């Protein structure tokens, strides 16, 4: 706690980027107001990108899970012998640890 409190003010005081941006924004507003639209559109674009990222990030996990299930149901099971893979035991122990 003590460490993070002492660090916070130092970082904000010595942040050169925050100072330069605060100076530049009003200037650009005055000279090129059309760029505001660009900034807004960029904002929308960023939000869209963010949503896309979330979707694509979750999709591989679920796809992987589905593939794993197929692997676990596996050739051995499909062919008609006992399961040879450990994946389901491993998943069960993972679940237990999670709980």
């Amino acid at each position, binding site marked *: 706690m003590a460490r993070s409190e002492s660090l916070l003010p130092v970082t904000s005081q010595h942040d050169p980027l925050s100072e330069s941006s605060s100076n530049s924004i009003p200037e650009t507003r005055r000279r090129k107001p059309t760029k505001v639209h660009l900034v807004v559109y960029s904002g929308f674009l960023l939000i869209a990108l963010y949503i896309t990222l979330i979707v694509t990030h979750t999709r591989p996990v679920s796809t992987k899970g589905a593939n794993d299930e197929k692997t676990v149901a596996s050739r051995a099971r499909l062919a008609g*012998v006992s399961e040879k893979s*450990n994946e389901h035991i491993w998943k069960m122990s993972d679940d237990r640890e999670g709980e």
Partner: protein
Amino acid sequence: AFAWNNTMLSWQRTAFHFQPEKNWMNDPDGPLFYKGWYHFFYQYNPNAAVWGDIVWGHAVSKDLIHWLHLPFAMVPDQWYDANGVWTGSATFLDDGSIVMLYTGSTDKFVQVQNLAYPEDPNDPLLLKWTKFSGNPVLEPPPGIGDKDFRDPTTAWKTSDGKWRITIGSKINRTGISLVYDTVDFKTYEKHDILLHQVPNTGMWECVDFYPVSKTKHHGLDTSVNGPDVRHIVKASMDDTRIDHYAIGTYYDSNGTWVPDNPSIDVGISTGLRYDYGKFYASKTFYDQHKGRRILWGWIGESDSEAADVQKGWSSLQAIPRTVVLDTKTKKNLIQWPVKEIESLRLRSKKFHKKIGPGTVVPVDVGPADQIDIEAEFKLKNEDLEVIFGDDSVEDDKDFSCETSGGATLRGALGPFGFSVLADQSLSEQTLVYFYVTKGKDSKLKTFFCTDTSKSTMANDVVKPVYGSFVPVLKGEKLTMRILVDHSIVEGFGQGGRTCITSRVYPTKAIYGATKLFLFNNATDATVTASFKVWQMNSAFIHPFSAVDDLVVPSST
């Protein structure tokens, strides 16, 4: 997945346990002794380190330890085994010739039984196998699923001179063993009655059936029967991948078997197991050369398939074990590594140490990744008397190796034993130990356990605590034997009454960094341990070369 590197993975290969040079292996098949050679066949995928494309691998040995790989014995080349040459068993006929019955997975994935025999009976190596032209000899009977009919046993003689086999199956959730009689192994007569069945145990595979002597310590040929004989039924539980056995009485007249104690019947979860660790699809054979029954067991991996693919191989076989009825308790089998394993013992060190409660002692044996330990432990009588004389100490009815917290659970009289495959700081260690409790009626109750939960820093490994109750009779000392061979640890409690095989994959406790410790994590008991540790040689298992291998290590 854990970031395994080649250094770690290379270390996992064993020095004296049977394994192919690469790829996947599972069940033992048709082990036998013929013209001076032990033959070992096994389920093998020549194409990958995961199950599939199963052929019969083949190796020979003079002593069950120094194996020489031979070409495949059988491959899927017929419609009746197109999807795999699966598990089978060998039978010696009266004239000394061999027949092999095995399960084939047909081109339509139906499980059928097939007959094969050696092409040249004069070849001691049994290199070539002929499949019977009339295969399949058995198909799933009415009422049995196409994928519920596999793994024929070695045949045994009936009193009227026929041969009899049993095959595992299920009806709904009831595990069953079907019975067939034959005179020529080509045509069969199915019994209406089953050898045995147990509800709610699921599919039985790799059924084994054999006699054990009530009085003698030697093995019996599969056809032996009589008043001094008990019969064992073993089945591998498809649902749980556990090998369960039970002791009972076989009735030749109708081909049935009845367990001594139905409450611990075949497949009942509280029933008897060959091994309380990782040990499956096992099979025995009668070694007529040395008059003993030998048990083979498939030891799978506890890591991930991805790791297996990375290391390029998967699975081991346990060191072959002699199996006999415990003539003292008459309620369990005794398994013990074959005597021949002792031929690998190199230099040894003997120790006698007294260790107090909460103590861990390093054992200076040098590198400890290929060792054989034989130990006996003694608890101080005063410590026992304190616990058993104190009514305030409650009976520990609920202790279980698997669920009671492993070796970190401290009781008055345990755990104590060895920490194997440990690094110097004990950040990785596998603990093999006894845990003694005050059992029912205040009688001593002893458990033999293996805790793998701290065996590795890797996260893609199953790390259970294994173990079970082990019978200790009055006047007996507590004894254990541990075989450590890189990624496999085989533990034998009380002379082999309870056995535990585990697979472990340390990341730091490897090569020269592998240490051995003796520990006593009991709260009240002082333990005296007398033990001997041998460094073990490699068995140098390699492909057979006609020039070099005509002279192999002599059998002991």
